[in-house]
């Protein structure tokens, strides 16, 4: 039984299709993150789930019951908004208990729930303040408190951290994760930040142009992205893409990329194709920067290659450094240990681990 399910969901604003045939389902305790660039429809999907917007076609089901016509307050959900949406004239206490007051929960129960949530979120000392007297992080906590106090079936988060500064964002992120682990509630979370998605989710839905490009566990999306879009969106720095063809060399599949007379051949015989390519098919080879390293520190796997490449640009992050090389008419980025000395314009040996590559069709950009 799934807690939340979307079936053949469509949403049009006039002639613009914002959501196209969305299907997904999540189970008890899942943390689903809807991630994608702005305008991909993720917030619309969340609003439809909450009942704040109507769908054009399709069904939303909570606990296997269709809730299309059920108003937000009766869907047993709670939502945290990007702008926090705290009631500005009410104190923190009133903000948190407003929903219970509207639902006519007895005073004693209200007090009990308030104490529980305030303790959980460490906002006991703020209860008498107005939202304008709180810092961004505190407002965020109060907004979460207002959602938590309801003990809903599903929590909905609409980019809750994007208004916070970088440090606080990471702190609140781990607090949300801890809350989820402790309370085991089901969460749907919208963000445009793939790092947030990766670190929080048990399931990620990558959305693009109103469709779900891929739905799966974070590691699955990272290791075997379904399309160039997902591969590019998940992971930072982004995956490298090299255009070329698949050719047969002595019975072994080989990736060939030619640029200005120089030909690069990469053996891909070990790659598990889901869709066997034909001879000469245009493909895109994807390699994550994490697997492009300096020769000196890495062991040679079964499938790996060394190249002599010239560094063009180097960015250090402290722990490691991102190095950019010209490669086959394009650029590829590698992640080197910061212990390696990289000199710009001085060629050096670069080691590419081929055991984790992705290969996409050149036209459809889907994984093959």
């Amino acid at each position, binding site marked *: 039984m799934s807690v939340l399910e979307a079936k053949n969901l469509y949403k049009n604003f006039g002639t613009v299709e914002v959501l196209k045939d969305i299907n997904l389902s999540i189970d008890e305790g899942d943390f689903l993150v809807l991630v994608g660039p702005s305008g991909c429809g993720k917030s619309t999907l969340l*609003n439809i789930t*909450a009942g*704040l917007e109507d769908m054009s076609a399709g069904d939303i089901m909570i606990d296997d019951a269709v809730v299309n016509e059920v*108003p*937000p*307050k009766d869907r047993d*959900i*709670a*939502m945290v*908004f*990007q*702008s926090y*949406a*705290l*009631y*500005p*004239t*009410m104190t923190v206490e009133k903000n948190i208990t*407003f*929903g219970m007051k*509207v*639902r006519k929960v007895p005073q004693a129960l209200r007090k009990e729930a308030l104490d529980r949530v305030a303790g959980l979120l460490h906002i006991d000392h703020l209860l008498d303040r107005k939202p304008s007297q709180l810092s961004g992080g505190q407002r965020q906590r109060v907004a979460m408190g*207002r959602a938590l106090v309801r003990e809903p079936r599903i929590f909905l988060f609409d980019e809750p951290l994007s208004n916070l500064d970088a440090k606080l964002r990471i702190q609140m992120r781990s607090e949300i994760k801890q809350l989820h682990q402790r309370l085991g509630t089901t969460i749907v979370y919208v963000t445009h930040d793939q790092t947030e998605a990766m670190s929080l989710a048990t399931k990620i839905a990558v959305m693009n142009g109103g469709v779900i490009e891929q739905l799966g566990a974070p590691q699955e999306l990272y290791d075997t992205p379904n399309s160039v879009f997902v591969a590019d969106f998940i992971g930072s720095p982004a995956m490298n893409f090299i255009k070329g063809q698949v050719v047969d060399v002595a019975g072994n599949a080989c990736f060939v990329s030619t640029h200005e007379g120089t030909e690069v051949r990469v053996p891909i015989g070990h790659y598990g194709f889901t869709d066997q390519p034909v001879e000469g098919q245009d493909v895109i080879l994807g390699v994550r920067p994490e697997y492009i390293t300096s020769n000196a520190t890495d062991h040679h796997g079964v499938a790996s290659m060394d190249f002599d490449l010239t560094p063009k640009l180097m960015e250090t992050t402290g722990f490691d450094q991102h190095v950019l090389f010209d490669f086959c008419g394009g650029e590829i980025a590698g992640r080197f240990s910061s212990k390696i000395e990289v000199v710009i314009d001085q060629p050096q040996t670069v080691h590419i681990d081929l055991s984790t590559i992705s290969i996409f069709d050149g036209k459809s950009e889907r994984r093959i």
Partner: protein
Amino acid sequence: MPDQTANVARGGGKRWSPILLRGLLFLILGLFVLYYTLPLFVMVVTSLKSLPEIRQGALLGLPKEIVLDAWKNAWSEACAGVTCVGLKPYFWNSVVLVVPAVIISTAIGAINGYILSMWQFKGSNIIFGLMLFGCFIPFQAVLLPMAITLGKIGIAGNVAGLVLVHVVYGIGFTTLFFRNYYVSVPVELVKAAKIDGAGFWTIFGPILLPMSAPVIVVTVIWQFTSIWNDFLFGVSFSQGDNQPITVALNNIVNSTTGVKEYNVDMASAMIAAIPTLLVYIVAGKYFIRGLAAGSVKG
């Protein structure tokens, strides 16, 4: 700090120019203050003089002796036509007219503005546009249809009729004020309230209304001033004992019995103007604040 150092670096010669500019600014502002307060000064001074002293012709001079007779006269004795009861009964007429008219038009404007911003429906923008259009219809244009309407309803010539006229005419403005104010309130607030289980009135009452103090002040001042100062509707849709103070003031000033009593005229005009003046003084700063809050987002 950087400004100061820059000034010092530029040398002593230029340091005087900001002070000179400031002086010039205050001079110009001072002249404006003088220009605008002079009529008020003449009014106050004249109302405190005795008639013989006025006839001597020193318009700007301070009274030799302060005489309050003109004020007493204007309040309770001055004649409008043949009735000599002063402004007192008409003052209360205006109060009885203005208070309900302001409250009702503000309340309707608040609900209209709330619906037109937070509960938009198909055609709501057209309705808002039409209401805006109503703000620009001159008073004179609606006199005749309004008179017919009031006659048909059966409230022509009494206070209820005049209240209705002012409420109808004011709704355009009050709706505009509240709608523009509520448009700047984040929609997420309403979404959060909906999820909390709040309905139409629960969102309006406990959440939006307490946030609306600035715009309520603006609307009340606006409506109070325009209804209190209205003459045309007053003179057209009220009779005899029901007339508002503006109409009575006109009658007093225009009824002469040989001698023109300037001091009484001035005192009457002051009495008629004092309530609006008070409203501005008490709530003026909210007025400016509220106007700005409605126009600038965030």
